[in-house]
């Protein structure tokens, strides 16, 4: 009974915190000289009022969901992995390399899975390095993963300025287009099966984390490393494993971005997606299922930000203020409990 009441209260509190954010942002909009009701209604009708807009929210949210799930897995093992960004970018790079140099002649049913494997390996390599640094040399993973994000951008730039550059691009830094057969199938015009993959992965992760012994071990480590050691749980190996799985999922997000959305690699492909994913994970209190909703919320906000700018003339970065207010109020809600 008490449990039930607590659950209802939880829903209410989340609702209230979101409402507070919407109200606070409304005041900001009034100060900026626009009618908040107009803006909110435009954000919703013009983004969610048509199939294209909904599709774009889904497309935009897909990498956020995956990186959020990856962040969650690391977090359960007591690791703050901010490297989803770099792991995504590197996964995009390795999957593009595979697509351009190796898989061009392959049919879809072999080429796409191999491309996904390539992307996952790229992300795993990057997170694995951070894992080794954490476990073997006791280097703070929050710092190493952030720094490695910047190195990942540079590796991508090195590739698209060099061997991976499209020979027909007049020296513009981008890769050639991947073969049409390597593009992910679409479930709706412009929306690839990436979203299904993302949701399935997040469901599976939630199930494993909360039901399996592996997930239990992970949570014990995250709860108290010393206790986990005394209980005979191999902390180092489990943390490395968590890092590798996180990296694979983020790398897959990069592959989906290439095969499902962009079709080619540019220096700016996926920029900031990893950070939005990290944000989604924290807004969801590292619950992989709740992360689907928070990722969709962030996706909705970033897509509708364009609409706000186009129709009201406010800079689209204004939506980032709304995002920040929502994050703060959700964190505030957590603090109150």
């Amino acid at each position: 009974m008490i449990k039930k009441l607590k659950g209802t209260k939880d829903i209410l509190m989340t609702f209230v915190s979101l409402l507070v954010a919407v109200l606070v942002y409304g005041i900001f909009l009034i100060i900026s000289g626009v009618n908040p009701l107009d803006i909110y209604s435009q954000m919703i009708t013009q983004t969610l009022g048509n199939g294209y807009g909904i599709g774009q929210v889904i497309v935009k949210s897909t990498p956020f969901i995956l990186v959020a799930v990856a962040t969650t897995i690391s977090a359960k093992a007591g690791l703050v992995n901010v490297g989803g960004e770099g792991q995504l970018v590197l996964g995009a790079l390795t999957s593009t390399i595979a697509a351009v140099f190796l898989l061009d002649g392959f049919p879809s049913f072999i080429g796409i899975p191999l491309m996904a494997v390539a992307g996952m390996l790229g992300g795993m390599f990057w997170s694995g390095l951070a894992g080794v640094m954490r476990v073997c040399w006791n280097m703070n993973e929050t710092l190493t993963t952030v720094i490695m994000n910047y190195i990942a951008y540079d590796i991508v730039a090195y590739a698209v300025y060099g061997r991976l550059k499209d020979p027909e691009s007049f020296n513009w830094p981008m890769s050639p287009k991947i073969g049409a057969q390597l593009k992910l199938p679409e479930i709706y015009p412009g929306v690839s099966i990436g979203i299904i993959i993302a949701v399935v992965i997040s469901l599976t992760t939630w199930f494993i984390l909360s039901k399996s012994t592996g997930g239990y071990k992970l949570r014990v480590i995250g709860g108290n490393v010393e206790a986990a050691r005394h209980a005979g749980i191999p902390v180092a190996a489990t943390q490395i494993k968590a890092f590798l799985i996180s990296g694979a999922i983020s790398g897959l997000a990069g592959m989906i971005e290439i095969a499902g959305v962009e079709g080619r690699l540019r220096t700016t492909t996926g920029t900031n997606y990893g950070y939005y994913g990290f944000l989604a994970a924290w807004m969801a209190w590292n619950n992989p299922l709740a992360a689907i909703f928070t990722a969709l919320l962030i996706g909705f906000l970033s897509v509708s930000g364009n609409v706000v700018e186009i129709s009201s003339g406010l800079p689209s970065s204004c939506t980032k203020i709304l995002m920040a207010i929502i994050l703060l109020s959700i964190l505030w809600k957590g603090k109150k409990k």
Partner: protein
Amino acid sequence: MRKEMKKLLGTGLAGLSVAAMLSGCTGTEGGADTAQVSAADNGDAAVVGFIFVGAKDDYGYNKAAYLGSLAVEEKFGDKVKVLRSENVPETEEASRTLEQMIQQGATVLFPTSYGHLYPAMDVAEKHPDLVFYHQGGLECADNLGTYFGTIYEPYYLAGMAAGAATESDKLGFVGSFPIPQVIENINAFELGAKAMNPDVTTTVIFTSSWSDPALQTSAANSLIDSGCDVIAQHQDSTKTIIELCEDKGVYAVGYHADASELAPNMWLTAAIWKWDELFCDMAETAIEGKFDGSIYDGKYRAGIAEGVVDLASFGPSVSQETKDAINEVKQKMIDGTFSAFSGLIKDQNGNVVCEDGHTMTVDEAESMNYFVEGVIGTIEE
């Protein structure tokens, strides 16, 4: 586990209910209605959309294009509604923004950055009845024309001012990407400078970005430290480098828009855009349904003679003698008797790239992948 379920349900439900509540406020119905509503909002006005890769107040590329979009708004008044979006990345994000403008009724679209081309191509293919004008590209489609100006002409003139001003005979150039439109400007700058001062060299650093203040600062600083006393640039946002030049007491050559107010002492001049009339004419052509077969259907290039590109105001240090020399060449360009790329020109390795007596066509100029003699730097292949 049950607790977790509830927590996530809480987050999800709350999110959905806020969305539902907000849409309740506005009383919207299905998707089709919405599309009609937004189309009806525009009345009889034709809708023209502009996307910019940077901010409209960058004292550069985006400011110039933004001023052009303002001109369209002013000229047509109620007949045209202008939509704008700044800071649109050169990825599929650009496609999304264009599609969103189309949702709001836009029928003429200006993707104004070089890297907006491929995303715009994708959108253009899906909307064969709309017209797209891409700025500065080298490719076209049935309903996508590309327009640009031979900005290397005024850049040659700016080079003359730099060549006359330098005392160290070393000019610096902060480039962005090693693509033809940037290389043209660097080469024209060096050739113009050499016309005033045969010993002058231009050292180039590429930043691989249109507007990264940190990279701009470090590139300009290292050029200044190596003895360059004039810094020119091909960046979208010119403010950082120009202000740095003023601080360090080296001459500044701007780009895209007149930024003389940023460097009252060290400003020389700049090659600038004047999009106003062209944008108005292009918009009108498309709105009237006359795009097919018009001069804008394909690759359109205008120059100093058409007034699409020009030279900015001169700074205080430019002597009357230099001004006269520059204005004389400018007049010849307008008359069509002189071009930046004419006569014997050799590349860095001494190979002849333009024969004596030949004047390069716009196409030849736009396929440059080499630096002319006197430029120090490399183009990575």
